[in-house]
């Protein structure tokens, strides 16, 4: 079996695990076991997984509140993610962050950010830090089409460009800024890629639902960054399978558009590539079943975990672990 096939099988499996984890999050929300809000990434799997396979383990990833797929792609377990959503002590953030703040620092996934656009300058800072320390690490900021109209997007691109920083800006363009079509509120056809030239940053628009295309685009950008050539903007076209958040039925999306995109499912695209490489349907079925088992076990473990420890309410404001504000 070729290296390419082995890698694509691994990517397929990771996307399959993410897809099932997101479905679990949706079902658990409907069952009242996940409260608050969720922003599911079903449909966006190829962007997270393709990018992750192009990066080194010591590269930094920053994501938005729709970030479950990035946490898992960088090594967070489905169990820890679901436990976090279910307010358990075994949650990724001990139940202190919730769905919008999944973070896996051991995998250098330095957070999911709930304020639109906030993490772009933060990613620029991580890239600056890597440049100062001379480590050839790169920082990747994943963000939505909606984030391209907020001030921090523009400040981040400008700063990354003038300081030639090793940062990759990956826009997950799913055509909607929450409930509004992005074209209605953006003075550009390609919200991220069309703005990049104004900041002297090379950009490309890619099929965000083809994991190999994503991997190759991110690999190229990472090589540029490590060679000291500065930032890149990648606009990855993709689509949400669910609504914006919680149980939003997304009625604002035309039925034919939804149908068209569901037919271009990143998992189906990867499966077709695998079959073209000679992988048998049985092998792929085996991976699907393994993904089923992994996520089923994760749901079980998360359900049975204890709730968040009350003592943690007052910990970790400061680096010393405490929260004292006075003598």
């Amino acid at each position, binding site marked *: 079996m070729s290296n390419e096939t082995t890698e694509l099988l691994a990517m397929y499996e990771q996307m399959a695990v993410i897809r099932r984890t997101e479905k679990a999050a949706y079902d658990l929300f409907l069952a009242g076991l996940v409260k608050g809000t969720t922003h599911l990434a079903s449909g966006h799997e190829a962007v997270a997984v393709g990018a992750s396979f192009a990066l080194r383990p010591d590269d*930094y990833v920053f994501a938005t509140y729709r970030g479950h797929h990035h946490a898992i792609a960088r090594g967070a377990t489905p169990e820890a993610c679901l436990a976090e959503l279910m307010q358990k002590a075994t*949650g*990724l*953030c*001990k*139940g*202190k*962050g919730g769905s919008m*703040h999944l*973070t*896996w*620092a051991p995998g250098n996934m*330095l*957070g999911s*950010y709930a*304020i639109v656009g*906030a*993490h*772009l*300058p*933060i*990613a*620029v*800072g*991580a*890239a*600056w*830090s*890597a440049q*100062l*320390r001379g480590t050839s690490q790169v*920082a990747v900021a994943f963000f939505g089409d909606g984030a391209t109209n907020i*001030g*921090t997007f523009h*400040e*981040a691109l*400008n*700063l990354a460009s*003038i*300081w030639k920083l090793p940062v990759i800006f990956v826009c997950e363009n799913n055509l909607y800024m929450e409930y509004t079509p992005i074209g209605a509120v953006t003075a550009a056809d390609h919200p991220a890629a069309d703005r990049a030239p104004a900041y002297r940053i090379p950009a490309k628009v890619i099929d965000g639902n083809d994991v190999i295309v994503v991997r190759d685009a991110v690999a190229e950008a990472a090589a540029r960054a490590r060679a000291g050539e500065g930032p890149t903007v990648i606009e990855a076209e993709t689509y949400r399978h669910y609504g914006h958040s919680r149980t939003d039925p997304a009625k604002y999306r035309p039925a034919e558009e939804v149908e068209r995109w569901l037919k271009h499912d990143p998992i189906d695209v990867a499966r077709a590539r695998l079959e073209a490489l000679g992988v048998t349907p049985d092998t792929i079925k085996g991976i699907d079943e393994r993904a089923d088992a992994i996520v089923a076990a994760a749901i079980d473990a998360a359900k049975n975990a204890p709730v968040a420890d009350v003592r*943690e309410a007052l*910990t*970790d*404001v*400061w*680096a*010393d*672990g405490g*929260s*004292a*504000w*006075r*003598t």
Partner: protein
Amino acid sequence: MTETEIITYREAVAEGIAREMRRDPTVVCLGEDIAAAEGVFKTTVGLLKEFGPRRVWDTPISEQAIVGAAMGAAMTGMRPVAEIMFSDFFAVCWDYVANEIPKARYMTGGQVTVPLVLRTANGGGLGFGAQHSQAVENWALTIPGLKIVAPSTPADVIGLMAASIRSDDPVIFCEHKGLFATKGPKPPEGHVIELGKANVVREGTDVTIVALASTVHTSLAAAERLAAEGVSAEVIDLRCLIPMDLATVLTSVGKTSRLVTVEENPYQGGWGATVVSVVVDEGFQLLDAPVKRVASENVPLPFADTLEEAVIPTVDKVVAAVKSVVNF
């Protein structure tokens, strides 16, 4: 016998930063006009020359990117010292100050730390007008997760700058622009003032005056005048709002039984309210008189000198407040 060298408050800022940059290569500076121009208030003189352009960076006018990048660098092994030119501009990058930096460690269950310093020129008295003259330590006080420092003398600038840069927690470091020209002894190498330790700058027995940064000097001048009239005032320089040294305040009120706070921020939402609420709660038995807060009027800061004087705490206002509690 060697004479103690005298330096200005603004020289102390550069000296304090330089001392830390010499001992720790992960300390880097960024801000608008801080490198080549050495700071609009000349508070970073000599840094670019000594440490070079890879440690002292001029940025565009992009407060959100400056502070956001400082956060990202702090999360990944550096100790950035970022300048916000006028403290009023914290409003421009308020998401980072209020929502991102102070919450990152807590929300992630302790997975990240943010060892940065946001230093800024704070306060009024130079006629810069309402949007360049505010004292905003109290803005940061409303947010758990930020340490807040406001030195009143050159020696304290250096000692507190050392502690702030060495701290693994995010620190808002408020330099007072009205104090930049003031002078004081240059402290020896290694001078560090632990965060959260107030300084009793004048001992007294009749009233406790709690002050911060510029109001320390106002309060000391008031104490001189009061002494001539037979009132002995103890003046406490809080130095930090977070950690807030209420132990020192309570000990002092235990001695004097009267409390006056002197705050440059407007009365509404000022830091004195927190001090007073704790003293009235935990030190009720200690008090022999109502507590007075001397603070700016609840208006934007006007430009003309006569108007500004009518708004901000003055020596006259402090003397009057002290007399009212002493004569209760």
